[in-house]
């Protein structure tokens, strides 16, 4: 009965969402307080209903209730508890329910914390949220119902896809969805502003925390997904430009642009229309990502859902929301008043530059992702657009942006002084070049581009620190005064610096791994040794073992340096019984920021096995950088002060910064 009650709660959530979608908008039109206040109650009720349904489904998973078809298809009674729970969203139906849960969660947050919002704006925002919720609830109930029953119930489940039975993938989807769906709030704010035909600096102030939160979670989700792919798929790569990865990366790029343009809008009331457009674009890309992954139009390691009826339904949702939003934009954008003016060389100008490049990069990734699909649909030819395309186009686009990043926070609002800023950044440039050369010398023989890349990364870090140092007046005023000023800086300034430092750290990791990693593929017999990254690996032999729902073969390796054994590592291949599916569990050892990565291949001859060994220099800084970015996001989020962009007439850096900051 509890299962059916959960199902009914989901249906009731849809009914509530329909009411929430219809009445508050009417209330905003008629200026009727009762109808508008209904939005908040409905949003909270809707969230509670979906949360109850989600809890019931989780309960069915935990108790291995195979009379629920979804549980039977994706669970197994012998699975460890954590994977029984993560199995809830490790499949199409459950992950859509998670999507809806997070969407209604954000609506409820807007309802609860949006007391300072004008009532009409709040009512409209919640109504738009409810449109999205209604569409997705209907989609879930009609095409992907996780509560469908299976009578008589089978005695055992079919198990979760083994590559998804992993801690990384247990937390990756919730983080990613918090990001994806978080942008729905920005979208709803944009649509509400278009409906009202009114937008101003205060609007940007209200949207800021939502953009910031969504961006931070999306960063975390992408980073986690990348690390999971790195250690679980056994290929040793950390980013594949796989369409599913691109699907999450595009909203991130657009979201980053949104973050920065919303900043300009809040401070200087400029770029209003552009910001609204970006808010629409960002969530549209989230929807597109959902469509790409969930409709099964892609065939890749991630795509575990295939059903054309779903594809058509999601496509309809996509067309309605994206098409509708752009139509509304075309209709209303001209009614919005344009805001403040600024010179090309100014903080605003730098942010526009940032926006131009990020949007171009988004379009580039979008093209590379969709082109094969369009081509296949039109001609039937199957091609894949691989890393070479993205590395060339995306990499080249990013170069000028990365170079410009430290300039942004140092330039003054309205009109800036490029020469002055360059002077101040001289130290950072010098340090960057110094480190780059040192690294080049150290690794000696590395490609010249790597030198430039490392230098750029260090320059990013140095530039961010320069900004903080200049603002606290280090060197100009007495030490204790500088410290006082430093600790008095707005938290968003630290957020900006952290996020930009993170960018530099990630860049250093990417360049180091790309340029200096070594890969050795060799057939090994017990006793043989291989050199990698200055370490010696000796293969000691294989051992058979078993886990709760799999059996495994593990190879043991001893790692030594200069003849002294310093560490050991196990690398295994698993076979999951229920699905008869093999997975690799790479053996990874960390030395500082670098890693030794050992993956087993096929057994070739008696006692001999193919072993792939990678030396990944500085690889951890790729994800370490994203930790900095996330920290920057949270620090900025905690800054509840208002921002005012004081327009400068003379050269001087000003208060609040760019970046993840906002």
């Amino acid at each position: 009965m509890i299962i059916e009650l959960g199902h009914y709660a989901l249906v009731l959530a849809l009914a509530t969402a329909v009411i929430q979608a219809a009445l508050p908008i009417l209330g905003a039109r008629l200026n009727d307080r009762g109808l508008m206040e209904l939005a908040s109650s409905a949003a909270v009720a809707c969230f509670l209903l979906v949360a109850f349904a989600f809890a019931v489904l989780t309960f069915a998973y935990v108790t291995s209730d195979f009379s629920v078809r979804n549980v039977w298809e994706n669970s197994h009674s012998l699975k460890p508890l954590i994977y029984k729970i993560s199995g809830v969203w490790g499949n199409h139906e459950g992950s859509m329910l998670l999507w809806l849960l997070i969407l209604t969660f954000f609506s409820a947050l807007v309802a609860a914390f949006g007391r300072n919002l004008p009532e009409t704006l709040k009512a409209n925002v919640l109504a738009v949220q409810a449109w999205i919720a209604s569409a997705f609830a209907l989609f879930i109930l009609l095409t992907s119902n996780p509560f469908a029953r299976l009578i008589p119930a089978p005695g055992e489940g079919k198990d979760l896809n083994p590559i998804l039975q992993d801690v990384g993938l247990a937390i990756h989807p919730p983080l990613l969805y918090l990001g994806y769906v978080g942008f729905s709030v920005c979208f709803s704010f944009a649509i509400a502003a278009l409906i009202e035909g009114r937008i101003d600096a205060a609007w940007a102030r209200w949207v800021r925390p939502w953009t910031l939160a969504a961006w931070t979670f999306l960063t975390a989700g992408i980073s986690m997904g990348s690390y999971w792919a790195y250690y679980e798929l056994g290929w040793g790569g950390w980013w594949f430009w796989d369409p599913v990865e691109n699907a999450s990366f595009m909203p991130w790029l657009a979201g980053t642009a949104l973050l920065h343009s919303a900043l300009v809008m809040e401070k200087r009331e400029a770029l209003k229309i552009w910001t609204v457009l970006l808010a629409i674009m960002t969530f549209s890309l989230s929807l597109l990502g959902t469509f790409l992954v969930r409709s099964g139009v892609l065939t890749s390691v991630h795509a575990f859902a295939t059903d054309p009826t779903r594809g058509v339904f999601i496509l309809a949702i996509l067309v309605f929301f994206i098409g509708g939003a752009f139509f509304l934009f075309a209709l209303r954008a001209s009614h919005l008043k344009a805001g403040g003016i600024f010179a090309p060389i100014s903080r605003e100008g730098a942010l526009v530059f940032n926006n131009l490049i990020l949007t171009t990069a988004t379009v580039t990734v979008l093209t590379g992702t969709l082109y094969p699909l369009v081509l296949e649909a039109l001609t039937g030819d199957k091609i894949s657009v691989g890393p070479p395309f993205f590395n060339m186009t995306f990499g080249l686009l990013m170069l000028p942006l990365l170079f410009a990043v430290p300039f942004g926070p140092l330039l003054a609002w309205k009109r800036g002084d490029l020469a002055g800023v360059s002077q101040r950044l001289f130290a950072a440039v010098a340090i960057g070049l110094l480190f780059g050369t040192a690294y080049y010398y150290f690794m000696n023989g590395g490609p010249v581009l790597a030198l430039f890349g490392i230098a750029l990364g260090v320059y990013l870090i140095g530039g961010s620190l320069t900004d903080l140092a200049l603002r606290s007046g280090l060197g100009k005023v007495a030490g204790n005064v500088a410290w006082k000023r430093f600790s008095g800086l707005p938290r968003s300034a630290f957020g900006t610096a952290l996020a930009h430092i993170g960018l530099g750290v990630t860049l250093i990791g990417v360049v180091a791994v790309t340029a200096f990693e070594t890969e050795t593929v060799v057939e090994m017999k017990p006793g043989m040794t291989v050199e990698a990254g200055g370490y010696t690996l000796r293969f000691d032999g294989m051992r058979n073992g078993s886990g709760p729902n799999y059996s495994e073969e593990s190879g043991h390796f001893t790692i030594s340096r200069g003849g002294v054994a310093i560490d050991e590592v196990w690398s295994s291949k698993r076979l999951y019984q229920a699905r008869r599916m093999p997975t690799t569990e790479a053996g990874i050892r960390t030395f500082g920021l670098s890693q030794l990565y050992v993956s087993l291949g096929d057994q070739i001859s008696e006692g001999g096995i193919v072993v792939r060994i990678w030396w990944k220099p500085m690889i951890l800084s790729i994800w370490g950088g994203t930790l900095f970015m996330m920290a920057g996001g949270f620090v900025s989020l905690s800054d509840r002060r208002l921002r005012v962009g004081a327009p400068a007439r003379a050269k001087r850096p000003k208060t609040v910064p760019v970046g993840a900051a906002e």
Partner: protein
Amino acid sequence: MLFWILVAILTAAVAAVLILPLLRAGEVPSSPHSHDVEVYRDQLDELKRDQDSGLIGSDDAELARAEVARRLLAAGESDRNVAPAGSPRRGVNRVAQVFVLLCLPAVGLCLYLLTGSPGVPAQPLAARLADPNTDINILIAKAENHLAVKPDDGAGWDLLAPIYMRTGRVEDAVDAYDRAIRLLGPTPARLGGYAEALVVQSDGLVTTKAQEALRQALSLDPNDPRSEFYLALGLKQEGKKAEALTAFNRLAATSPADAPWLPLVKQHVAELTGGGAGSGAAPGNPSAEDVAAADSMSAGDRQEMIRGMVESLESRLKENPDNLEGWARLIRSHVVLDQRDKAAAALKEGLKAFPANGDGGKQLLALAHELGIATDGVTQ
């Protein structure tokens, strides 16, 4: 009943939550710009704080203040232009209440009755294991768990094999019969069951492997009707009509008058003597649902269904020939339908996708050999 009471309570609770703000409504909302004004005031305060703490110079602060003040004025201005809202409209409010009260149960019940399964209880595995009762799947699961630990318990496999067969898990049935025969020794029942499972596995075709088992069963018990039937069917599928007729006739003669298989035997006899084309309705079909459907059909319909399935399989293979299992099934199905020339043609097509010197091609050729299809001239 309890379920419907809970459904009613849940619906009523949500309705109450939604109606409450409508009932409370009375005050006219504050003006839309008053919030903007607040934000701009805060901005001015913030500016002052920044200036006091030395984060911003006085010139800059002055400029910024001027900008914010302009916005503040504009917001206050537009406030004055907004006409004060009239008293809340009673009519609209009433309509909204009715909408809420109707929408919740209407949408809720309609969709739930469409998609839900009211009355089906939750069935946690632990509870089912503790009290299996008549839950066949749990009994199977328990037996499987037992056999996973003690795989040489022949009696267990012997018990499980026919159950697998009945629940449509043909592959598992073949495996279970095989193990039971190896562990406990052959009996006519086990051998017959094994052969039957093999026949169903190969879409109704009596393969040479099945025939061997059947012959062995008959050597143990010459009067085992099931073995006799399938052997006769095998002869018929091979095109040996006279021998098949003799075998069916002998089976009919030795069977008791009320034997349940007699009508089927007689049907085969009739077909063989009548010489009707496309005969030989196979007793095995791909899945449990198909079997159930086929059971309730007349012989003609069944033949139609098989033909339809073969045609759809054929067209699917034409679009995507990279499907070894599909080709094997297509060849088998043609043989079952007594269309040997088509089977040979399918083999030829299949070998285009899987060359004869590759693994897949070899499997197809071996299959053709087993079914007695001419392989000459297809492997040039």
